[in-house]
C-alpha cells in the first residue's frame, strides 16, 4: 500500500513584511481524498495553496508533491512536475484575449503540443462535462456570467485529466443556487477523474459538500483536522466559533488568535 501522501506541507513558514502568515504549518493530503481547508479571511489559505503550486516560495519548510520536494525547483522542472495539476482560481482567471475554448485548451495547445483541431474537440468535451454547450466555445470571458466563468475555469482545470485539483474559493461571489451547482460539478469531476482535491473556502455548506476531510487554518497553523462529518461534532473552540459564526471566542475579528495554545 502506498503511504506517501499526495501532497504535504512540512513545517512551512511564510512572512510578509515581517508578519507571520504561515508559522510551522504541517498538513498532508492522502491520494484520492478531497481535503477542504477552512478559515477566516486573511488567515493565509490562499498563501498556503500558492506555496503548494510553486507560485510563492515559503521562507522555510518543504512542500512535497508525490513525495518530492518542490521548493526551489527551476521553472522547467516545476512545469514538468505540475503537469498533472489543475487549478480553479477564485476569480476564474480566464484569459481575456482568448475565447472560451482557447482558454480551456490553453495547456493542451501551448504546453502539450496538441493540434488546435484536436484541442478544440477536447475543450468542447470538457465544456460539456461542466454543462456548457459548444455554443459557448467561441464567446469571450467578458460575455459570460460569473457562474459560467467558474464553469469554464473548472473545464480548464480538468481538461488534461489532472492527478490533483486545487479549488481556490470556488463559490465566492456566487448566489446560493449557482454555488450549489458548482459544488456538485466539483464533486462529480473529482469522482470522475479519481483524483486528489484540495479546496480552500470559508463557505461551510460548500466545504461539507466537496470535502472528504476538513482542516482549519488559524494563526498560521492547522488547528483542527478531521473527516467532514466531524465538523459539527468537534468541541475544538476555533471550529465551534467558526461554524457557529460567533464574534466571541478565541478567534478575534482582526484575524489572528492564540492558535499556539490549541492543537488538533
Amino acid at each position, binding site marked *: 500500500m502506498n503511504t506517501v501522501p499526495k501532497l504535504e506541507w512540512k513545517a512551512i513558514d511564510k512572512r510578509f513584511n515581517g508578519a507571520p502568515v504561515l508559522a510551522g504549518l504541517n498538513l498532508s493530503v492522502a491520494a484520492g481524498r478531497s481535503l477542504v481547508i477552512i478559515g477566516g479571511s486573511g488567515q493565509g489559505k490562499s498563501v498556503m495553496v500558492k506555496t503548494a*503550486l510553486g*507560485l510563492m516560495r515559503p521562507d522555510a519548510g518543504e512542500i512535497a508533491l508525490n513525495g518530492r520536494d518542490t521548493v526551489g525547483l527551476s521553472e522547467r522542472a516545476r512545469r514538468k512536475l505540475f503537469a498533472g495539476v*489543475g487549478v480553479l482560481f477564485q476569480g476564474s*482567471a480566464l484569459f481575456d484575449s482568448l475565447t472560451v475554448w482557447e482558454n480551456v485548451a490553453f495547456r493542451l495547445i501551448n504546453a502539450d503540443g496538441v493540434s488546435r483541431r484536436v484541442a478544440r474537440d477536447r475543450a468542447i468535451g470538457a465544456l460539456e462535462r461542466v454543462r456548457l454547450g459548444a455554443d459557448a466555445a467561441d464567446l469571450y470571458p467578458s460575455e459570460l456570467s460569473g457562474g459560467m466563468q467558474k464553469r469554464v475555469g473548472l473545464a480548464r482545470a480538468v481538461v488534461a485529466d489532472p492527478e490533483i485539483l486545487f479549488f481556490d474559493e470556488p463559490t465566492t461571489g456566487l448566489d446560493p443556487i449557482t454555488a450549489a451547482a458548482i459544488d456538485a460539478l466539483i464533486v462529480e469531476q473529482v469522482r470522475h477523474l479519481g483524483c486528489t482535491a484540495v479546496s480552500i473556502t470559508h463557505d461551510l455548506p460548500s466545504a461539507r459538500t466537496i470535502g472528504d476531510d476538513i482542516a482549519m487554518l488559524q494563526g498560521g497553523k492547522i488547528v483542527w483536522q478531521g473527516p467532514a462529518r466531524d465538523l459539527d461534532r468537534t468541541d475544538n473552540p476555533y471550529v465551534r466559533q467558526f461554524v457557529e459564526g460567533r464574534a466571541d471566542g478565541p478567534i478575534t475579528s482582526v484575524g489572528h488568535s492564540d492558535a499556539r495554545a490549541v492543537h488538533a
Partner: protein
Amino acid sequence: MTTASLAAPRINPVRAIGRAALGAVREVGAVSLFAARGAAAAFSLPWFPNQLLRQLVAIGFFSLPVVGLTAVFTGAALALNIYTGGGRFNAEQVMPQIVALGITRELGPVLAALMLAGRVSAAIAAEIGAMRATEQIDAMRTLSTDPIRYLVAPRLLAAVMVLPLLTIVADTLGVAGGWLVAVRVLNFNPTTYIHNTATFLQAWDVGSGLVKAAVFGFIVALMGCYHGYNASGGARGVGRATTHAVVSAAVLIFAADYLLTSLFAHP
C-alpha cells in the same frame, strides 16, 4: 501627549541616501535580470508564433498613423526652422541636407520610439498588469506555460523588429514633410530638393538610425513588460505601472540615444 511624541521624525540623510542608492541598484538589477530572461526566451524554443504575429500587428501596424503624422509635422517644422536659422548666415540652400540628416540620424528613430513609448509601453504595462492583478499570470504558470516566454518574449521581439520599420516610414515621411514645406512655402525646386537629399545622405545615416530604433524598441517593450509584470496593489498598482512604464521608457530612450550617438559619431 509628551513633547517627544510631538517632535517631527528625524531623518538621517546618510541613511536616506544609502537607502535610495540601494533601491536604485536593486531596481537596475531586477530590470537587467528580467531583460536577460526575456531575451533568452525570445531566442530559444518553444516559441509562440501566434503571439508574435499578434504583437507585430498591435505594435507595428496600429502605430503607423501616429508615427507617420508625427514625422510629417516634425519634418515640416524642422524645414522651416532650419531655413529661418540658416538665413542668418546665407545657408538656406543646405536646408534639404540638414533636414534629411536630422530626420534619419535623430528625429526619425527618437520620435517613433517616443510615440511607441506612449502608445505601446502603456498598453503593454496595463494589459500585463491587469493579468497580474486578476491572477491570469499565476493561472498561466499552473497551465505549464512560462509567462516570460508567452507574454514577454513575443513583445520584445515584435518591438525590436517593428520599430526600425516604423523608423523607415518616419524617415520617409519626415523628409517628405520638409520637401512639402520647401516646395510649397519656400519656393524650392522640387527635383533639386530630392536630388540634394539623395546625393548627400549616406547609408550609415539611415543605418545608424535603424540600429538606434531596434535598441529603442527593446527598451519600449521591456519597460512595458517589466512594470506590468511586477504590478501589485490592484487597479491603483496597474495605473502606477503604466505611468512608470511610459516615463522610464522615455528617459531610457534619451539616455540610449546619447550613448549610441556617441558610439556612432566620428569626431
